[in-house]
């Protein structure tokens, strides 16, 4: 070693300082942090959605869930715990939830929040089909959150993991971290860009349909993709239709489900529909061994 003692001490001090700084940064960022989400009284919503509909016994499940929703929104955000229950025995695999979600959030090609996975089982003639709608699991320990290098995604106090489209740099690390494949990237595709192409490959009528640049209202903001604006280039995911909840509306996958197989509500409400379903049935979650503790429960 061609270093003198003084140089050796300096090297040790520099290395020690470097490691100490690194450890400090990691420990600081590992600690729970304030997300900037509004909390407390400010988040309480007194919704008038069902004011003119008197409660009655045996009313439709959708009305019951909507009542639960109005009740939950009257509490501060940190006291709500949104969850979804999917009854696979009732799901007929119609994909109405998938399409409803695409329409509600104006999802471009290649972006999907709630695909329905079809599994075939048994041997002819004793065969069966099983459908598994797969929204974002809104995990209690979301693996997609800590991997974000710029704090563009976090778990809200009500348990919904959200993405700040204005912050996301589009690195797609969160896509790889989600074991459910629940995040997709908006690569900038349009439905109508290639829709009017003739058999010879020549565009019959060029130009993108104007409705493709109409804004969606995710997270309560207007997002128009025109001019390469966010959410183009961002990671996108199901958010339990937070923008609808704010207005007393259930997530669109719940209202479009023709088999009444999807339930939504606040599991901190002991009398809520979803709380009762979770308590009554032997529910399971997807990939429990991953330790993510999903808030989407399945009845099989």
């Amino acid at each position, binding site marked *: 070693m*061609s270093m003198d003692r003084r140089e050796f001490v300096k*090297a040790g001090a520099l290395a020690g300082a470097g490691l100490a700084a690194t450890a400090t940064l990691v420990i600081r960022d590992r600690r729970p942090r304030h997300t900037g989400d509004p909390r407390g009284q400010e988040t309480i919503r007194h919704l008038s959605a069902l004011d003119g509909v008197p409660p009655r016994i045996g009313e439709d499940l959708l009305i019951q869930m909507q009542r639960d929703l109005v009740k939950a929104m009257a509490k501060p955000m940190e006291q709500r715990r949104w969850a979804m229950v999917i009854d696979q025995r009732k799901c007929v695999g119609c994909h109405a939830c998938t399409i409803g979600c695409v329409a509600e959030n104006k999802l471009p*090609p*290649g972006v999907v929040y709630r695909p329905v*996975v079809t599994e075939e089982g048994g041997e002819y003639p004793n065969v069966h089909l099983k459908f598994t709608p797969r929204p974002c699991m809104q995990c209690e320990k979301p693996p997609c959150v800590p*991997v974000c*290098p710029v704090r563009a995604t976090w778990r809200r106090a009500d348990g919904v993991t959200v993405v700040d489209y204005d912050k*996301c740099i589009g690195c797609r690390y969160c896509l790889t971290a989600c074991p459910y494949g629940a995040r997709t990237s908006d690569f900038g595709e349009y439905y109508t860009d290639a829709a009017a192409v003739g058999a010879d490959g020549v565009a019959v009528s060029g130009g993108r349909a104007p409705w493709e640049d109409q804004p969606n209202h995710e997270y309560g903001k207007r997002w128009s993709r025109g001019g*390469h604006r966010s959410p183009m280039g961002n990671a996108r995911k199901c958010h339990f239709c937070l923008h609808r909840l704010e207005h007393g509306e259930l997530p669109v996958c719940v209202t479009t489900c023709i088999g009444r197989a999807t339930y939504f509500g606040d599991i901190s409400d002991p009398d809520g529909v979803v709380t009762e379903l979770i308590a009554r049935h032997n529910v399971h979650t997807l990939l429990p061994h991953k330790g993510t503790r999903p808030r989407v429960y399945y009845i099989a």
Partner: protein
Amino acid sequence: MTNVGTGAAGACGGVGRRGNGPRRLLWTIWAVLAGLGLIGIGQRVAGGHLPAGYGSYVPWGLWVALYFHGVGIAGGAFVLGAGGFVLGVPGLDRRDVLRTVVVLAIAAIIPAFMGVWLDLGRPERAPAIFLSPSFTSMMAFNAWMYNAFMMIAVACWLLSFRERSGWLKPLLCLAIMFSILFPSQSGAFFGVVGAKGFWHSALLPMLFLASAITAGAAMLLFVLAVFQFKDDCGTGCAALRYLRNVTLAGLMVYFVFEFAEFSIALWNPDVHAPAIELILWGPYWWVFWIVHLLLGGAIPLGLLLTRRRAAWTLAAFLVAVAFVSARLNVLVPGQAVGEIEGLQEAFQHDRLKYIYHATAMEYLVGLFLVAAGMAVFHLGERINAWAARWTASPA
């Protein structure tokens, strides 16, 4: 291209007479790479991510592999070059060689950064990694560590011009620590992703470090043999022999690690096995068997075992280039195995598939990155030569 050798002149076995031919050849190669690469850059700018082959289920492709290969080369070359300087390894204990090592490391990192920058969905927001980082993310960690390393390396480069500096070697030690940490941390980048069975392995940081040392040693050997010690059979040959030995050892260690991982997973198939089967027998089997094992392993091993310097140089080139397959073989198969069966059939789209084929645009941009690395190296060596003359001239 670059021609700044300052080694002692003398006869050296296996080194032929050099004229303008090799320089012209290098310039021609660079011009072709840059020309083709610019076409790819044009496509990327005009078409965004649309001409690329990656999607949402395999979100990272060739550019990310090149990124990790580039930073691996930077780390490995710096560890060995700067380590050789600090430890007084003959041939590497010279300041002009140290400066070449710094330039090589930076020339490997800058195109790597360019590659991953082009991969971002919102490249204009890249500074956010430095302005509002979250150090729970290995990506933020990586970015900060590479940049800290570059700053320290540049400081070392500046100090290397001073006759006596009590800070040069301590700072070099710090930079060496970083250049060991960041290739290992590149493995941790994938290792911490519990969602991917193939990645979630404690061996990955070790594999990445081994491949960084191997490819870095090979690249440094190639660069020094071609540009620095081209006519030197004194200390230069000693340095090349040291790098050849490290490359040989690195190759063997890497393949032992790889064998350990593959054999255990295949002996008792677990979550790793599908990805490994994809590597061995999937549509890109040739990347493993031909590029990785043959061009990056068997042939270089044979060449490095000879006593001819020209053979070592060729072997070093092969290892430095073909080891990108080591990155690809971790990156792509890890993503190409989904956790939820039937997901890609649930909603049909080209970007919702567990397969990845790099497109022509991606390859062309890859060529641009190589050309950019060559240009940065050439420019750096020019500055080295100019600064050496300037600092040596009487005040």
